């Protein structure tokens, strides 16, 4: 009898340290956190959102499997499901399924796998997939044809004129952001309940702000995301909007409302906290969040684009290796 059978010793490859958080667990938590905005979008937009999410998920898993088989990769990697769902959440709900699948294939094959697979990609795959689709189909990506389901108990309240105008304005053709950018529309605090409960046009996952906040709570409570990243991001955006609002309250939206518009919450919850494409040092995380926040507001308020979340996070992804280098902790004793 062999000695190892007698002693009942298990033989396993390194690492041997039992860490409470491992990659598989982290992905499960992220999936759980993604269920909230996914469910919210299906509630708001119906089966269209469901098919979009399903298509993106299946395309992501299949393209990842096929490409990794071609490359002869064997390390387990189940992150493609997450990439698929997040890509679906950042696309308009009325986006054609074939084009969404194309964006997902770009995200998985070019952005993630060609750069070395899980953990080696420079850019957030889902956002890069959206950036690709933005450049490829500029008309489709800005077409928000689906009207979200109205908030039931708020719309009955016809007495409040603020709520009424906010409600009607929130569901017309353009997204609130493009109205702000191109029609000089200003939203006051009365529009806030509608924005939080999803009665505004926008990408599939970004409309139902309350659901995203619940997803964020899950991520932070379970320790799958570092609190510094969302805090510094939301904080910088809020501060910057506050300064603009104090200087010129006619042309700039109240910071409380602005933070619930567009993709700030979704980006800050699921993209800014991406452990692969953001800095690893605590100081670096603060810099990343602050930089992305400043760029978001700059692009949103002073450029030709109505929204800046995607580009700001991608730009900060690009400088992440540099941030890591400059915030490297000093070795004790040197």
């Amino acid at each position, binding site marked *: 009898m062999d000695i190892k059978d007698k002693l009942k010793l298990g033989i396993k490859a390194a690492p041997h340290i039992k860490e409470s958080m491992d990659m598989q667990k982290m992905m499960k938590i992220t999936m759980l956190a993604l269920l909230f905005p996914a469910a919210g979008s299906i509630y708001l937009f119906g089966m269209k959102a469901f098919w979009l999410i399903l298509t993106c998920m299946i395309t992501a898993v299949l393209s990842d499997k096929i490409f990794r088989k071609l490359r002869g990769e064997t390390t387990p990697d189940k992150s493609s499901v997450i990439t698929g769902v997040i890509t679906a959440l950042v696309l308009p709900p009325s986006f054609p399924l074939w*084009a969404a699948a194309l964006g997902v294939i770009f995200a998985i094959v*070019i952005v993630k796998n060609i750069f070395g697979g899980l953990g080696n990609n420079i850019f957030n795959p889902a956002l890069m997939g959206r950036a*690709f689709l933005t*450049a*490829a*189909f*500029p008309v*489709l990506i800005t077409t928000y044809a689906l009207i979200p389901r109205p908030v039931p108990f708020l719309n009955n309240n016809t007495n409040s004129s603020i709520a009424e105008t906010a409600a009607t304005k929130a569901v017309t053709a353009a997204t609130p952001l493009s109205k702000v950018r191109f029609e000089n529309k200003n939203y006051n605090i009365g529009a806030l309940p509608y924005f939080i409960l999803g009665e505004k046009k926008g990408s599939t996952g970004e409309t139902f702000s309350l659901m995203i906040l619940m997803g964020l709570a899950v991520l932070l409570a379970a320790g799958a995301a570092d609190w510094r990243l969302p805090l510094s991001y939301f904080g910088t955006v809020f501060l910057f909007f506050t300064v603009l609002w104090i200087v010129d309250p006619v042309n700039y939206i109240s910071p409380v409302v602005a933070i619930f518009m567009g993709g700030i919450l979704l980006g800050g919850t699921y993209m800014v906290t991406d452990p692969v494409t953001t800095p690893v040092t605590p100081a670096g995380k603060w810099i990343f969040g602050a930089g992305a926040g400043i760029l978001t507001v700059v692009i949103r308020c002073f450029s030709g684009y109505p929204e800046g979340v995607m580009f700001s996070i991608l730009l900060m992804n690009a400088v992440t290796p540099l941030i890591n280098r400059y915030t490297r902790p000093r070795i004790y004793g040197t």
Partner: protein
Amino acid sequence: MLKEFIKGLWKDNPVLRQLLGMCPTLAVTTTALNGMAMGLATTFVVVSAGIVVSLSRKLIPKQVRIPVFTVIIATFVTVVDMVLKAYFPQLSSALGPYVPLIVVNCLILGRQEAFTSKNPIHLAISDTFGMGLGFTFILIVLGSVRELIGAGTWFGTVIFPTGPAGFKPLVIMVLPAGAFITLGLIAALYNLINLKVKGEV
């Protein structure tokens, strides 16, 4: 002599192996026709300059060879520019500032420095002609891919009819980003074929 000609087509391809002349490669290949025009113009310049440099290689002082090469190249670029303006005004305006910029195409200067200034005229012609054709070949491939996917046409002929129910062109392919993506993928394919031929994959 044949060996010098062949190497530019595949083994030492100026774009895929030497990665020279990236500026026109990426900038003008929005259509197959533009790519071909730029490739042929470059071929003419590199061959003509190669002949002159090879003939005068013993007269050029080593210390000032780069300015001399540049002046010779600039002469032929001016010829190309004027011919294009006179006979193909549409093409000339499509290529825009990239025709005068052939002067600083590092592929052309690189051939003079590396080959024609050290070799007799018959070798110089075959080398530069091979390089020019290899350059043209890749520019046409790049332009074709970008035009097909980005506009649904090839050399101006409609291949995929666009429309509400038809082919939806990927606008990104005619934008600069599409040039980088396509060139990267073509270079990867080139390396893959080379490895397959060597039997390493």
